């Protein structure tokens, strides 16, 4: 029979069971969700898309490991969040970016934006977007030279040395050169110029749907974001027909990548569903405003970073209604 006197028991607070989801499993889901877009990038831009992503991931993981090591903090690379940041940073860079440059970007993302503020969950702007913003400000030329996947098809496998560059759809939209735009099916599939992982709307939609199905993200942020951009561009077209203008704006400029993978970043988005709706609408508003009135062609990156700064404010004003307090009670209390 059991020797009850010599049981080695631990006594901790309830609950004594936990769900199966972990930070690591969530990050793994995000990595899986990014894979269709990565595969398409390899098809569109050549093998270099993969090597750029790999270098970026290795860089980000290395910076995270190094910082935690030097600061004698518990090692955190196992949660895979640095892998996600690395992939996203590569996804918002042109495929022609020099390898050393993406390592610099990773340094900014991981150390400056994430670790110095306390690591995972504590950064106040999206690390990948902030890394890209810093690279864009520092190396504007390199960060805005886009190769044309269609005219470069043959040369793409391997090297991008003599690639033909072209304008992104967003630049063409800005200048009103509607006739030079790629066809809408190409926009949807992604055979267009642009950042490495932003071009294929369908691959990103697939990944986003996977994340919503796995309950990693809520639908509120991406749907509110995309719907806001769609409604505003439909109502106020600059060139072409309403529908045409709206579709180019929705499918181009990294909106899908931003809406599903950047604006939904846990650390930098509101915690309630109501807050996420407001956040999504705000992102959409700023995106359209930057595209219409700003000097940049596309506004996804900056609109999300701006909205990141509103998160604390949104959280403060979207607290769930207190249990047991109905609206009429509140009014009565106010009247008193």
């Amino acid at each position, binding site marked *: 029979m059991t020797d009850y006197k010599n049981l080695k*028991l631990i*006594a901790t*607070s309830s*609950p004594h*069971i*936990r*769900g199966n*989801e972990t930070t690591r499993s969530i990050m793994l889901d995000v990595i899986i969700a990014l894979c269709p877009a990565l595969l398409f990038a390899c098809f569109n831009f050549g093998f270099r898309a993969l090597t750029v992503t790999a270098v970026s991931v290795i860089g980000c993981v290395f910076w995270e490991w190094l910082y935690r090591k030097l600061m004698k903090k518990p090692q*955190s690379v196992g949660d895979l969040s640095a892998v996600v940041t690395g992939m996203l940073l590569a996804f918002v860079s042109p495929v022609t970016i020099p390898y050393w440059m993406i390592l610099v970007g990773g340094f900014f993302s991981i150390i400056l934006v994430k670790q110095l503020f306390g*690591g995972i969950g504590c950064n106040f702007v999206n690390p990948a977007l902030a890394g890209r913003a810093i690279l864009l400000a520092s190396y504007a030329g390199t960060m805005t030279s886009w190769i044309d996947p269609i005219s470069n098809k043959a040369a793409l496998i391997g090297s991008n040395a003599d690639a033909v560059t072209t304008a992104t759809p967003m630049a063409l939209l800005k200048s009103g050169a509607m006739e030079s735009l790629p066809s809408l099916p190409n926009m949807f599939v992604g055979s267009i110029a642009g950042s490495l992982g932003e071009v294929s709307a369908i691959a990103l939609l697939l990944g986003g749907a996977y994340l919503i199905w796995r309950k990693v993200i809520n639908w509120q942020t991406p749907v509110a974001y995309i719907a806001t951009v769609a409604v505003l561009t439909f109502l106020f077209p600059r060139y072409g027909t309403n529908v045409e203008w709206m579709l180019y704006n929705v499918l181009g400029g990294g909106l899908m990548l931003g809406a599903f993978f950047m604006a939904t970043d846990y650390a930098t988005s509101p915690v309630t569903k109501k807050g996420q709706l407001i956040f999504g609408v705000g992102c959409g508003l700023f995106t359209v405003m930057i595209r219409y009135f700003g000097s940049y062609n596309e506004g996804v990156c900056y609109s999300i970073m701006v909205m990141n700064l509103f998160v604390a404010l949104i959280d403060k004003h979207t607290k769930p209604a207190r249990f047991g307090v109905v609206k009429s009670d509140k009014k009565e209390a106010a009247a008193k």
Partner: protein
Amino acid sequence: MAQAFFGGVHPHDMKAATNEKAIEQLAPPAEVVIPMSMHFGAPCTPLVKAGDHVKVGQKIGEFRGLGAPIHASVSGKVKVVEPRPYSMGGNMMSVVIENDFQDELSEEVQAPANPDALTVDEMVELVKNAGIVGMGGATFPTHVKISGGIGKVDTVIINGAECEPYITGDHRTMLERPEEIIGGATYLAKMFGVDRVIIGVEDNKQNGIDAMNKVIAEKKAPVVVEALRCRYPQGGEKQLCQAITGKQVPPGGLPSNIGCAVFNINTTCAIYRAITQGMPVVRKIVTVSGSGVVEPKNIECPIGTPVSCLFDACGGLKEGTYKLVMGGPMMGMAQYTADVPVGKGTGAMLAFCENEEQTVAHPQCIRCGKCVAACPMHLEPLFMYQYASRDMLDELNDAHIMDCMECGACAYACPARMHLTHMFKYGKQKLKDKQMAEKAAAEAKKAAEAAKAEKEVAAK
């Protein structure tokens, strides 16, 4: 299907291990340890001393103020009256009875001549004398709930949700003793003067619902069974009221504030036994389960049975058992010894030997918001955790931490494995301490001012 409540989680129910096993009677234990606190309120005063002979059902502990009396659960000699380990942690004055295995019934246990002719006051008195408390684990004295609710309550609810994983005692009671449940519910309807009682049952217990419906039809009882969505914490009193009536209990309030009174399945059975047989609470149905138990079972045993006897009846514990939990896995208390006795609120005794806890070395919040979505009390656990861990007591109060019922849904849902519930228990205690200190300081100041004013008057 009844309306739902907001939030909650859906853990694997783990009930398959015991939900088809009939309630077994435990072989009488050689000794029972009956703690003088098995209810919400001040502990009872022992009425017996070492050497006394007691019989089953004899009153051995009397309550003062809020509480319920305590009765001997076996017959025999009182070995000692001394503090012993009990389920809430630490020691509690307990009456230790050496079983003489005679099962002599005390003369104090008298069945009423005609239970159906009793007045409401007589019935409440019977419930009070039987020492009935909320047997779902809250252990609030039932007679107080009834007498306090009469006139205010229009919805009487029997809680058959049994939403905690592993526990199947209520489910088995529905299958094996439906007439006791329905009988008790009928008496409750009489006491409250309502024309129907609602039994809320999670829809994973369909055969239990059917068994009760059969008895209701036979007896034409004023009882309806309502199937509820399977979601933890469906059996939380406030959530159950919300699911059945659509109304929310106000902050700091009780179900009676919205005209509800909630009773557990086994409390209802105890009410039935008290009114028909005059029988006090001396036995309890306990689900013994978990990965560390060789053969999980539902066992009925005398109150005061050391839990080690329950495990022995289930083939003992497996090698590597690291945790004993009294109650369900979501809200139960981890025990540091197997000597603790079964109390009136003990519904389950679990032993774990696998990695159920899944702790990580350095949990860090990733702000995913899953705790906010899981909280049935509409709180924001992630912010409360920050405040509590930094002792920001004013912010904690503003975040309504006192609304937290420690159901553990947030911690269950947390992918970062933060110790949320643990921190809230700490934070609530800190806040209570502070409020007590402030109250004491205010009173002291008032007293000092009064004394000063008196002096001034005297001086004049």
